[in-house]
Structure formats: C-alpha cells, structure tokens
C-alpha cells in the first residue's frame, strides 16, 4: 500500500518538475554561467569598469531598461558589436532573468569624476537649462536618478560612460528609423547639451547612491 502511495507521489513529483523545467528554459547552471559572463566585464557586483571602453554599471538598473537594451543590441536599434555578439544567442527567458538579476545590487559608485563639476551638474539635472529649452533630467529619470521602467537609473553610473553615451546618442541609439524606441525621447536633449554641460551632468549622477 505504502509502496503504491510513494510511487504515485514520485510520479506526480516527476511530472511537476519536468513541466516546470520546460516552462522555465533557463537552467540554474546556464544562468549562473551567463551571470558570471556579465560580471567578468561589468564587475562582480555590477558596479561598472573603466576598460579601454567604459563598461556601464548595471547594479540597481531598471529591469525593463536592461531588457529593452539587450533586445536593442540584437535588433541593431543600438549599435554595439560586442554587445550584439553577447546578446544575440540569449533566449527571451534568459534575457528576462539576466535583466532582473542586477536590480537589487547596490555597490558604492566607482567615483573618479571631476568633483568641481558636480554643483553645475546638479543644477542641470534638477532644473534643466531653460535658456536652451532643455528639460530637467529629474523629470524622467526621477529626483534620485533611479529611473523607472524603460527610463534608466543614472545614479552611480560611471562618468566616462555617461559622457560617451550622451556625446554619441544619435550614432548609437534608435538606429532603425522605421522602428523608433524610447531613445527618441533623448534626441532633442542631447542635441542641445554642450560638451561642458554633458560633463557636468555625468559628474553629478556618477556620485549619486
């Protein structure tokens, strides 16, 4: 009697597990190997890294933003050969899992930006540049620069990455004219920002925690 009960339980459990495994195609082993791959460049706690090219901070980043960017690399909406190569063979389930992973990391910002620019950057971030019709960054990215959904967190983002990104916006983002994405929102802003304003804002957000 007990043997029959135990056997039927085992059968039920086996069915339950195998269907769960099918629904979630990402195995723990594959997921951890892929996370390690992210961490090799973006840092063990996703804090970013200053390589020859600046490698952005992922820690605390919005899940929707990361998902959208990983797709943008694959769809060539965002130009980046390295990240295209990294992302092109990821399943949608894996993309979702990776994008969620860094949400709750909270390392100290890497620092290193020119401190004398922070005050000017804070003003632009909070008030915009009325004379040039530039909206306050805080309007979309939030008063703490933590972002929301597809609007990225900027707090703690490494300085050279923000400078590079704002300087190259139109060459890197929204590269498929017939398929506009959230990046279009930034286009008029980056068009109006001067080099020194970009550096100031980048310095300010890089120290936010």
């Amino acid at each position, binding site marked *: 009697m007990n043997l029959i009960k135990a056997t039927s339980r085992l059968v039920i459990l086996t069915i339950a597990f195998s269907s769960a495994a099918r629904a979630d195609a990402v195995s723990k082993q594959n997921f951890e*190997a*892929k996370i*390690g*791959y992210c*961490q*090799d*460049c973006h840092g*063990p706690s996703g804090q970013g*890294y*200053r*390589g*020859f*090219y600046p*490698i952005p901070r992922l820690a605390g980043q919005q899940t929707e933003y990361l998902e959208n960017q990983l797709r943008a690399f694959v769809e060539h909406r965002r130009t980046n*050969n*390295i990240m295209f*190569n*990294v992302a*092109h*063979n990821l399943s949608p389930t894996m993309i979702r899992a990776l994008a969620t992973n860094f949400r709750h990391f909270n390392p100290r910002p890497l620092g290193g930006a020119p401190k004398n620019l922070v005050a000017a950057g804070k003003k632009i971030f909070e008030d915009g540049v009325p004379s040039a019709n530039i909206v306050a960054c805080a309007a979309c990215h939030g008063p703490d620069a933590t972002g929301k959904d597809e609007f990225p967190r900027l707090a703690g983002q490494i300085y050279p990455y923000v400078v590079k990104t704002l300087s190259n916006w139109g060459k890197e983002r929204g590269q498929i004219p017939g398929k506009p994405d959230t990046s279009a929102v930034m286009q008029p802003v980056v068009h109006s920002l001067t080099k020194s304003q970009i550096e100031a804002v980048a310095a300010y957000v890089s120290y936010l925690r």
Partner: protein
Amino acid sequence: MKLTRSRRAILVIGFAAVFPWAGHAESLAIRNCTWCHGVSAHGYSPAPGLAGQRREYIQNQLKNFSEHTRDNPFSRLYMWGATANLSPATAHGLAFYFSTLSPQAANDGNRELEAEGRSIYQLGMPDSNTAACVVCHGPNAEGVGEIPRLGGLAYTYLKRRLEQWGEGYHAAARPPMPRIASKLSANQIEALASYLSFVK
C-alpha cells in the same frame, strides 16, 4: 596611438629634470632593467618587452612584485629581488621612462593561429561565456592606465601569463583576469598569444 616626436621630447625633458639619470642609458636603475628586458626594452625571453607599456601598469606591477602578490616562478626568481629596494619615486621614474619608448612587435607566434586569436580577442566567445579582450585592452591591444598593452609582446610570455592566471598565480590581482583566462583552452591560449605577438 604614438606620441609625436615633439611631445615625446617634452616628456623626456620633463622627466630628465626630475630624474637627472634618466637621459643616460648607462644610468644604473635603467641598466638593471635592460640587462634582461633588452637594451631597447623590446624584451628578451622570458623577460617581456617594456617599451611602450602603460606607465600605470608598470608602476602597479613593480608594486605587485615588491609586495609579492605577483608570484609566478620567474617573478619570484628575478623580480622580487629586483624590486626589493626600489623607492616609489624610482619606480615611477622607470615606469615613465619605459612607457615613452617605441614598442616593437615580437612577431614570434604561429601565423596559422593568428585568425582564430584575432576572433577571440575582438569578439570573445559568447557560447562559452568568454569576454572579448578588446573591451578592456583596446582595438590595437594598446592598453590604458593600469590595463597593459598586449600587442607585440612575445608569444611565450603571453602564453605563460594566460596559463598562469588559470593556475592561480597572481590571485590577489583584481578580477577579471583570473576568471576570464581560466575559461580558455590550451588551443585558445596559443591562438591569442600568436595573434597578439603580431599586433603592432
């Protein structure tokens, strides 16, 4: 990126003002390096080329040798002793001096593996979760700051260094190199070392 002649002249003059011995190839501190690293600092197996290496990297490695965190056999044998009595000022001066010299490619790898090495270097291997070297070391393997120039270093040096990361040497160095290099197979290491030995 090569320094223009005038910029290099300014650097050397500025350097000579701070380190009066630097202008002379006979200066003792430089001579002690070039015995092994070659009179033009282009390397002499197993001592790697230093010419054109990043100043911050050289300085950082000298510190690692003197603190015994860079601990592979040749480092123990030669560099621990060489750096035992090196003052920070002299280390800075030497790093500065060698960083201003023109590098020269060793060209001693296996030509047949060059293409595979280039592919690993420039694109990485997403299927085995291996990062692309280019992201940190630069498109011409020129390095930046504390990240070393790899282009033109000798095949045997590059090969041993990549093997040693995976063997646990220099474990106190900050990630990512121990992790990344330990994912490389013996063939992939040979391909990378071959490719890099030809990079100018």
